[in-house]
């Protein structure tokens, strides 16, 4: 069996993606809609707060809920970390993904001023990947042990770690 394609939703997401890309050409580098009807906006890192505030406040795009904030490590790239924000709109029942990039040393603006939910998610990304968030109210380790050194989710961190327990 094959999942049935929802052409109507695909068209709506494409149209909305073009709408957002037309309003924010300064920060949006690419817009894509996957075959499973998932809209993704690929952003320059300077545009995190403008784009997230736009998506939260604009009448046609009330994405009030930050569902998830994660990072992806692709060591072969120049900017190895890809920060992913998943947003949900309750008014229009639709989801959107916003992706940015950074390397190990460049700080990224914190989304806490836009979505309070980003607080612990950003602490987790800092702890697991080492991505520093500027203007975060309280950026410290959240999942690793107190004296733990290293960032475990990076691809160059070994599976059984450096210290024997």
């Amino acid at each position, binding site marked *: 069996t094959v999942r049935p394609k929802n052409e109507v939703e695909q068209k709506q997401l494409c149209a909305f993606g073009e709408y957002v890309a037309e309003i*924010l050409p300064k920060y949006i580098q690419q817009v894509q809609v996957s075959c499973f009807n998932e809209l993704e906006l690929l952003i320059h890192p*300077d545009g995190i707060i403008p784009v997230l505030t736009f998506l939260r406040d604009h009448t046609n795009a009330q994405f009030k809920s930050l569902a998830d904030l994660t990072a992806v490590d692709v060591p072969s790239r120049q900017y190895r970390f890809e920060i992913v924000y998943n947003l949900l709109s309750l*008014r229009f029942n639709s989801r959107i993904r916003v992706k940015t990039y950074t390397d190990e040393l460049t700080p990224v603006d914190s989304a806490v001023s836009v979505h309070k939910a980003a607080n612990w998610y950003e602490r987790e990304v800092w702890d697991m990947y080492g991505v520093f968030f500027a203007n975060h109210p309280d950026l410290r380790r959240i999942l690793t042990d107190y004296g733990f050194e290293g960032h475990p989710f990076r691809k160059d961190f070994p599976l059984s770690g450096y210290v024997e327990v």
Partner: protein
Amino acid sequence: MLSVQTTGLVGLAVAENPHERLRILYTKILGVLQNIPKDAAYRKYTEQIVNQRFNLVQTETDVQKLQDKLNSGHIEEVIVQAENELSLARKMIQWKPWEPLVEEPPSDQWRWPI
């Protein structure tokens, strides 16, 4: 709206005189939008939305019918949304997102599979 005691939503009080509040908010938004260049897509689309809602607010005096026509939840939610749009418009003036792209990504940045 005083015939209804609550909105049914936590934290949102019933708004007395919502037409007046919406009229004030929409005029403020349109005033702020004048400071954006005329060819910016944000200004075009937001003016379209705001004018549409403004006309509906001015023609329809009954609150229930206005809520149905706007099709956007309670009138108090529409007021909150208009306040959000106003704050967004003020921030957009500083960010200027209608300018061309800040910086192109490296060519392999968004390639998937790697």
